[in-house]
Protein backbone atom coordinates (compact mmCIF):
# COMPACT_ATOMS: atom_id res chain seq x y z
CA UNK A 1 0.00 0.00 0.00
CA UNK A 2 0.99 3.63 -0.34
CA UNK A 3 1.47 6.11 2.48
CA UNK A 4 2.83 9.68 2.49
CA UNK A 5 6.02 9.93 4.52
CA UNK A 6 7.38 13.46 5.03
CA UNK A 7 5.51 14.62 1.96
CA UNK A 8 6.63 11.82 -0.41
CA UNK A 9 4.77 8.68 -1.46
CA UNK A 10 6.25 5.48 -0.10
CA UNK A 11 5.26 1.85 -0.83
CA UNK A 12 5.00 -0.22 2.35
CA UNK A 13 3.56 -3.59 3.36
CA UNK A 14 -0.13 -3.72 4.23
CA UNK A 15 -0.83 -2.94 7.89
CA UNK A 16 2.71 -1.94 8.69
CA UNK A 17 3.11 -0.59 12.21
CA UNK A 18 4.42 2.92 12.81
CA UNK A 19 7.31 1.41 14.76
CA UNK A 20 8.30 -0.82 11.83
CA UNK A 21 8.08 2.08 9.40
CA UNK A 22 10.35 4.19 11.61
CA UNK A 23 12.83 1.35 11.99
CA UNK A 24 12.78 0.67 8.24
CA UNK A 25 13.65 4.32 7.59
CA UNK A 26 16.30 4.41 10.35
CA UNK A 27 14.39 6.83 12.58
CA UNK A 28 15.25 5.86 16.16
CA UNK A 29 11.88 6.20 17.93
CA UNK A 30 13.55 7.61 21.03
CA UNK A 31 14.93 10.57 19.06
CA UNK A 32 12.12 11.44 16.67
CA UNK A 33 8.44 12.20 17.02
CA UNK A 34 5.87 10.89 14.57
CA UNK A 35 2.73 12.70 13.54
CA UNK A 36 0.10 10.57 11.83
CA UNK A 37 -2.68 12.49 10.08
CA UNK A 38 -2.14 15.51 12.37
CA UNK A 39 -2.02 13.47 15.60
CA UNK A 40 1.19 13.70 17.61
CA UNK A 41 1.92 10.11 18.61
CA UNK A 42 3.25 9.68 22.15
CA UNK A 43 6.42 7.58 22.28
CA UNK A 44 4.62 4.95 24.36
CA UNK A 45 2.03 4.45 21.60
CA UNK A 46 4.31 4.07 18.57
CA UNK A 47 4.15 0.28 18.64
CA UNK A 48 0.36 0.27 18.86
CA UNK A 49 -0.25 2.32 15.72
CA UNK A 50 -1.04 0.44 12.50
CA UNK A 51 -0.86 2.47 9.33
CA UNK A 52 -3.50 2.52 6.62
CA UNK A 53 -3.45 3.35 2.92
CA UNK A 54 -2.87 7.09 2.28
CA UNK A 55 -1.96 7.86 5.88
CA UNK A 56 0.22 10.94 6.15
CA UNK A 57 3.19 10.42 8.42
CA UNK A 58 5.56 13.20 9.43
CA UNK A 59 8.78 12.49 11.28
CA UNK A 60 9.93 15.44 13.36
CA UNK A 61 13.28 16.09 14.97
CA UNK A 62 15.16 18.80 16.80
CA UNK A 63 17.21 21.24 14.81
CA UNK A 64 19.34 24.21 15.71
CA UNK A 65 17.32 27.22 16.82
CA UNK A 66 17.49 30.26 19.05
Amino acid at each position, binding site marked *: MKIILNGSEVEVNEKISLLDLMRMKNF*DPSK*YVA*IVNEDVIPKSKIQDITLNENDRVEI*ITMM*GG*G
Partner: protein
Amino acid sequence: MENDTLVIGGAEIRNRLIVGTGKFSSYDLIPEIVEKAKIDMITVAIRRARDGIQKPLIDYIPKGTKILVNTSGARNAEEALKIAKIGKELTGSDLIKIEIIPDTKYLMPDNREVIKACELLANEGFKPFPYMMPDLVAAKEMVKAGAVCIMPLGAPIGTNKGLVAKYFIEMLRNEIDLPIIVDAGIGKPSHAAEAMEMGVDAVLVNTAIATAKDPVRIAIAFSKAVEAGRIGYLAGLPSEKIFAEASSPLDEYLLGFLKK
Protein backbone atom coordinates in the same frame (compact mmCIF):
# COMPACT_ATOMS: atom_id res chain seq x y z
CA MET B 1 28.36 33.15 44.16
CA GLU B 2 27.63 29.54 45.26
CA ASN B 3 23.96 30.17 45.82
CA ASP B 4 23.03 32.28 42.84
CA THR B 5 20.94 29.66 41.06
CA LEU B 6 18.17 30.90 38.79
CA VAL B 7 14.93 28.94 38.87
CA ILE B 8 12.56 29.36 35.93
CA GLY B 9 9.42 27.26 35.77
CA GLY B 10 11.04 24.78 38.13
CA ALA B 11 14.22 24.46 36.03
CA GLU B 12 17.43 25.44 37.81
CA ILE B 13 20.34 27.00 35.97
CA ARG B 14 23.57 28.21 37.43
CA ASN B 15 24.98 29.74 34.25
CA ARG B 16 22.75 32.64 33.31
CA LEU B 17 23.89 32.51 29.69
CA ILE B 18 21.40 30.48 27.67
CA VAL B 19 22.71 29.50 24.24
CA GLY B 20 20.68 29.12 21.06
CA THR B 21 21.78 26.34 18.71
CA GLY B 22 20.82 27.86 15.34
CA LYS B 23 23.21 28.94 12.58
CA PHE B 24 26.22 26.87 13.71
CA SER B 25 28.47 25.66 10.90
CA SER B 26 28.58 22.25 12.59
CA TYR B 27 26.68 20.64 15.46
CA ASP B 28 30.07 19.41 16.70
CA LEU B 29 30.55 22.89 18.19
CA ILE B 30 27.56 22.50 20.50
CA PRO B 31 28.93 19.92 22.96
CA GLU B 32 32.23 21.79 23.04
CA ILE B 33 30.49 25.07 23.89
CA VAL B 34 28.27 23.45 26.52
CA GLU B 35 31.29 21.88 28.14
CA LYS B 36 33.82 24.72 27.91
CA ALA B 37 31.46 27.63 28.63
CA LYS B 38 29.62 25.50 31.25
CA ILE B 39 26.21 26.09 29.70
CA ASP B 40 23.18 24.74 31.57
CA MET B 41 20.38 25.55 29.13
CA ILE B 42 20.15 25.62 25.35
CA THR B 43 17.34 26.29 22.92
CA VAL B 44 16.35 24.23 19.88
CA ALA B 45 13.72 24.34 17.16
CA ILE B 46 11.80 21.46 15.60
CA ARG B 47 11.47 20.58 11.93
CA ARG B 48 10.66 17.66 9.65
CA ALA B 49 13.51 15.15 9.71
CA ARG B 50 15.36 14.80 6.42
CA ASP B 51 16.35 11.18 6.92
CA GLY B 52 17.20 8.77 9.69
CA ILE B 53 20.83 8.48 8.69
CA GLN B 54 22.10 11.94 9.58
CA LYS B 55 22.95 12.18 13.29
CA PRO B 56 20.14 14.18 14.93
CA LEU B 57 20.88 17.29 17.00
CA ILE B 58 19.83 15.51 20.20
CA ASP B 59 22.90 13.28 19.88
CA TYR B 60 25.15 16.33 20.21
CA ILE B 61 23.56 17.71 23.37
CA PRO B 62 25.43 16.62 26.52
CA LYS B 63 23.33 14.75 29.08
CA GLY B 64 21.96 16.98 31.81
CA THR B 65 21.71 20.06 29.58
CA LYS B 66 18.27 21.63 29.85
CA ILE B 67 16.62 21.85 26.46
CA LEU B 68 14.17 24.66 25.76
CA VAL B 69 12.21 24.02 22.57
CA ASN B 70 11.03 27.13 20.73
CA THR B 71 7.84 27.43 18.70
CA SER B 72 9.56 29.07 15.74
CA GLY B 73 7.46 28.67 12.63
CA ALA B 74 4.25 29.37 14.57
CA ARG B 75 2.20 32.31 13.34
CA ASN B 76 -0.49 32.13 16.01
CA ALA B 77 -1.24 30.64 19.43
CA GLU B 78 -2.83 27.45 18.08
CA GLU B 79 0.24 26.65 15.96
CA ALA B 80 2.46 27.34 18.95
CA LEU B 81 0.49 24.75 20.95
CA LYS B 82 0.93 22.14 18.19
CA ILE B 83 4.68 22.71 18.20
CA ALA B 84 4.81 22.65 22.00
CA LYS B 85 3.17 19.22 22.06
CA ILE B 86 5.74 17.84 19.62
CA GLY B 87 8.54 19.46 21.60
CA LYS B 88 7.35 17.85 24.80
CA GLU B 89 7.43 14.42 23.16
CA LEU B 90 11.01 15.10 22.05
CA THR B 91 12.40 16.43 25.31
CA GLY B 92 9.99 15.18 27.97
CA SER B 93 9.97 18.75 29.30
CA ASP B 94 7.12 21.22 29.84
CA LEU B 95 9.38 24.21 29.24
CA ILE B 96 8.54 25.96 25.99
CA LYS B 97 9.80 29.18 24.46
CA ILE B 98 6.89 30.87 22.74
CA GLU B 99 7.99 32.47 19.52
CA ILE B 100 5.27 33.81 17.25
CA ILE B 101 6.66 35.83 14.40
CA PRO B 102 4.45 36.97 11.57
CA ASP B 103 6.90 39.62 10.29
CA THR B 104 9.70 38.37 8.08
CA LYS B 105 11.74 41.56 7.69
CA TYR B 106 12.44 42.50 11.31
CA LEU B 107 11.21 39.22 12.85
CA MET B 108 9.03 41.13 15.29
CA PRO B 109 7.10 38.95 17.73
CA ASP B 110 3.32 39.30 17.81
CA ASN B 111 2.72 40.23 21.46
CA ARG B 112 -1.04 39.79 21.19
CA GLU B 113 -0.76 36.20 19.95
CA VAL B 114 2.01 35.52 22.47
CA ILE B 115 -0.35 36.51 25.31
CA LYS B 116 -2.97 34.13 23.91
CA ALA B 117 -0.38 31.39 23.54
CA CYS B 118 0.78 31.82 27.15
CA GLU B 119 -2.76 31.16 28.33
CA LEU B 120 -3.44 28.30 25.92
CA LEU B 121 -0.16 26.54 26.70
CA ALA B 122 -0.23 27.16 30.46
CA ASN B 123 -3.72 25.61 30.55
CA GLU B 124 -2.25 22.53 28.86
CA GLY B 125 0.41 22.27 31.56
CA PHE B 126 3.28 23.94 29.73
CA LYS B 127 5.67 26.47 31.27
CA PRO B 128 5.70 29.33 28.78
CA PHE B 129 8.85 31.40 28.15
CA PRO B 130 7.38 34.19 25.99
CA TYR B 131 9.71 35.92 23.51
CA MET B 132 8.25 39.40 23.22
CA MET B 133 8.62 43.00 22.17
CA PRO B 134 9.37 44.77 25.47
CA ASP B 135 6.05 46.34 26.36
CA LEU B 136 5.07 46.56 30.01
CA VAL B 137 1.35 46.23 29.42
CA ALA B 138 1.80 43.11 27.28
CA ALA B 139 4.28 41.63 29.76
CA LYS B 140 1.77 42.02 32.60
CA GLU B 141 -0.82 40.21 30.49
CA MET B 142 1.67 37.40 29.87
CA VAL B 143 2.27 37.08 33.59
CA LYS B 144 -1.49 36.85 34.19
CA ALA B 145 -1.76 34.29 31.39
CA GLY B 146 0.70 31.93 33.06
CA ALA B 147 4.18 32.83 31.76
CA VAL B 148 7.07 31.61 33.95
CA CYS B 149 9.44 34.35 32.79
CA ILE B 150 9.50 37.21 30.27
CA MET B 151 11.91 37.26 27.32
CA PRO B 152 12.11 40.76 25.87
CA LEU B 153 14.19 41.33 22.77
CA GLY B 154 17.24 43.59 23.09
CA ALA B 155 17.13 44.22 19.35
CA PRO B 156 15.74 42.23 16.41
CA ILE B 157 16.95 38.63 16.03
CA GLY B 158 20.37 38.28 14.45
CA THR B 159 21.11 42.02 14.26
CA ASN B 160 23.86 42.08 16.94
CA LYS B 161 22.78 45.64 17.76
CA GLY B 162 22.77 45.19 21.52
CA LEU B 163 20.31 46.71 23.97
CA VAL B 164 18.40 48.97 21.60
CA ALA B 165 15.31 48.46 23.77
CA LYS B 166 17.14 49.04 27.06
CA TYR B 167 14.78 51.57 28.62
CA PHE B 168 11.75 49.39 27.92
CA ILE B 169 13.48 46.34 29.36
CA GLU B 170 14.25 48.38 32.49
CA MET B 171 10.52 48.93 32.94
CA LEU B 172 9.95 45.17 32.84
CA ARG B 173 12.75 44.56 35.31
CA ASN B 174 11.25 47.14 37.67
CA GLU B 175 7.63 46.05 37.44
CA ILE B 176 7.54 42.31 36.67
CA ASP B 177 8.09 39.78 39.43
CA LEU B 178 9.23 36.97 37.14
CA PRO B 179 12.71 36.30 35.76
CA ILE B 180 13.57 38.59 32.82
CA ILE B 181 15.71 37.01 30.11
CA VAL B 182 17.00 39.34 27.39
CA ASP B 183 16.70 37.40 24.17
CA ALA B 184 17.89 38.49 20.72
CA GLY B 185 20.11 41.30 19.54
CA ILE B 186 22.97 40.69 21.97
CA GLY B 187 25.98 41.02 19.67
CA LYS B 188 29.03 41.01 21.89
CA PRO B 189 30.05 40.10 25.42
CA SER B 190 29.87 43.72 26.61
CA HIS B 191 26.18 43.83 25.61
CA ALA B 192 25.57 40.74 27.73
CA ALA B 193 27.39 42.28 30.69
CA GLU B 194 25.40 45.50 30.26
CA ALA B 195 22.14 43.56 30.35
CA MET B 196 23.15 41.68 33.49
CA GLU B 197 24.33 44.89 35.18
CA MET B 198 20.82 46.26 34.64
CA GLY B 199 19.56 43.47 36.85
CA VAL B 200 17.93 41.16 34.33
CA ASP B 201 18.14 37.52 35.32
CA ALA B 202 19.67 35.90 32.25
CA VAL B 203 20.48 36.45 28.58
CA LEU B 204 20.00 34.24 25.55
CA VAL B 205 22.61 34.46 22.80
CA ASN B 206 22.69 32.61 19.52
CA THR B 207 23.77 34.47 16.37
CA ALA B 208 26.67 36.29 18.04
CA ILE B 209 28.15 32.98 19.15
CA ALA B 210 27.26 30.83 16.15
CA THR B 211 28.57 33.28 13.58
CA ALA B 212 31.75 34.42 15.37
CA LYS B 213 35.08 33.36 13.92
CA ASP B 214 35.70 31.17 16.97
CA PRO B 215 32.31 30.22 18.46
CA VAL B 216 33.73 28.22 21.36
CA ARG B 217 36.01 31.02 22.47
CA ILE B 218 33.33 33.69 22.22
CA ALA B 219 30.89 31.49 24.15
CA ILE B 220 33.42 31.44 26.98
CA ALA B 221 33.71 35.24 26.71
CA PHE B 222 29.93 35.62 26.83
CA SER B 223 29.74 33.32 29.82
CA LYS B 224 32.31 35.38 31.71
CA ALA B 225 30.61 38.65 30.70
CA VAL B 226 27.27 37.38 31.98
CA GLU B 227 28.88 36.36 35.26
CA ALA B 228 30.75 39.67 35.59
CA GLY B 229 27.58 41.66 34.90
CA ARG B 230 25.67 39.58 37.41
CA ILE B 231 28.28 40.04 40.15
CA GLY B 232 28.40 43.77 39.37
CA TYR B 233 24.66 44.02 39.75
CA LEU B 234 24.64 42.08 43.01
CA ALA B 235 27.50 44.20 44.33
CA GLY B 236 25.41 47.34 43.79
CA LEU B 237 26.60 49.68 41.07
CA PRO B 238 27.55 53.20 42.19
CA SER B 239 25.47 56.07 40.86
CA GLU B 240 26.53 58.36 38.03
CA LYS B 241 27.42 61.99 38.85
CA ILE B 242 27.43 65.13 36.75
CA PHE B 243 30.58 66.71 38.26
CA ALA B 244 33.94 65.17 38.93
CA GLU B 245 34.81 63.86 42.38
CA ALA B 246 38.48 63.31 43.17
CA SER B 247 39.46 59.81 44.18
CA SER B 248 42.11 61.22 46.58
CA PRO B 249 40.92 64.48 48.16
CA LEU B 250 43.79 66.87 48.86
CA ASP B 251 44.68 67.58 52.48
CA GLU B 252 45.96 70.75 54.14
CA TYR B 253 49.47 69.41 54.52
CA LEU B 254 49.97 68.61 50.85
CA LEU B 255 48.51 71.95 49.75
CA GLY B 256 50.80 73.82 52.15
CA PHE B 257 53.83 71.79 51.12
CA LEU B 258 53.20 72.45 47.45
CA LYS B 259 52.88 76.20 48.04
CA LYS B 260 56.31 76.48 49.67
